[in-house]
């Protein structure tokens, strides 16, 4: 006799009786106003925006955004913190932006994620419930130079450890897209 799995328990009638799924408060400070704004009006303006969409380029990175990625500017080191798993990660790519989007989409779908796209921003929503609700990941592509892009993945909702695992799975599928990972970028010479 096999032990019942957690997903099976969640489906069981016995479990469902009187069960109220927990609501997970998002305590993190990720500012997703810009991503949310993009997805909020996508329904209303979908028809009008379609033509504009094809013409737009990914946002060019502002020098200050780049500089703020510097490890030296992060005061968290003052706290000798066991950083644990980060809520966001980034990598650079030499592939064209559209190709990056298609590759991420192709990699995320088999992992059980629904993909919502608008311009160079994406929302990846897990169809499976995780430890802290469904994992929800926001992606954005920035242009650093005509042939160089920075891809940022941020956890919007859900368990950070699951985000970390998701990213690990995703990056094995994205090997031919990734130029430099964050680990590569943070090595001090």
């Amino acid at each position, binding site marked *: 006799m096999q032990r019942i799995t957690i997903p099976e328990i969640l489906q069981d009638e016995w479990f469902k009786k009187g069960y109220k799924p927990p609501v997970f408060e998002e305590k993190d400070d990720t500012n997703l*106003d810009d991503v949310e704004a993009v997805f909020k009006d996508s329904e209303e303006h979908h028809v009008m925006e379609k033509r504009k969409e094809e013409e737009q380029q990914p946002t060019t990175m502002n*020098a200050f955004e780049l*500089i703020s990625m*510097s490890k030296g500017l992060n005061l968290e*080191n003052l*706290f000798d913190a066991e950083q644990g798993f980060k809520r966001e990660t980034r990598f650079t790519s030499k592939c064209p932006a559209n190709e990056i989007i298609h590759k991420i989409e192709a990699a995320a779908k088999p992992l059980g994620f629904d993909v919502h796209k608008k311009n160079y921003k994406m929302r990846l929503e897990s169809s499976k419930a995780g430890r802290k609700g469904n994992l929800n990941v926001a992606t954005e592509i920035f242009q650093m*130079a005509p042939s160089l892009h920075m891809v940022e993945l941020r956890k919007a909702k859900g368990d950070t450890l699951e985000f970390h695992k998701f990213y690990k799975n995703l990056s094995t599928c994205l090997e031919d897209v990734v130029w430099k990972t964050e680990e590569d*970028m*943070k090595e*001090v010479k």
Partner: protein
Amino acid sequence: MGCFHSKVTRHEDPIELASQTAFTVSEVEALFELFKSISSSVIDDGLINKEEFQLALFMNKKKENIFANRAVLFRIKVQPLPTAFNIVFYGHHILAFKLALGIAIFDLFDAKKKGVIDFGDFVRALNIFHPNASQEDKTDFAFKLYDMDGTGFIERNEVKLMLIALLRESEMKLGDEIIEAILDKTFLDADINQDGRIDILEWQNLVARNPSLLKIMTLPYLRDITTAFPSFVFNSKVDEVAA
């Protein structure tokens, strides 16, 4: 009394500091534990000097980087710390850039310009990084940080040097034309009066349009500080205050 009065320095009262900042009394006490460890690392005088601050900021606690730590330590101990302005112009050296940043941040923490950071300075400066601190304070702090030589303007060459240092740190090689293009785009966006530099008003305007630029000014970790630095009950003033 606990340990809020060291042999050499009187520290500001945690209740007073809590009332001035977004921190609770427990959080201020937790910060005091951190302050104690940083301020005693070189000279045990209850104050953080430049060297202690740099060590705290750049020492990587992971064992694998022990050689990197030694290099930083050597650099700090053996060579006098030049001013931020001078280091900026030695630009390409990543360590120099980090030290310059460290000094820039130190100067901002040292609000009374005494050359040392006391506990009150420490708490008030970290308060700006608290998630609940005002956007205005964060914007202001960030501006002063980027204006490394303190002229009241963020100049194009300052931004360029910081950008080059960041790119070297990340091992990304971008040609000068691309760096100039990024700078052009940034200044086109930010430099409204087109005088080649960014003043505080232009910075405020830029940040209002791009709130993500203030990401570095918030440490969500500060909300969990009491779990990271528990201070023992007999040190605590919390029970003395009516709930």
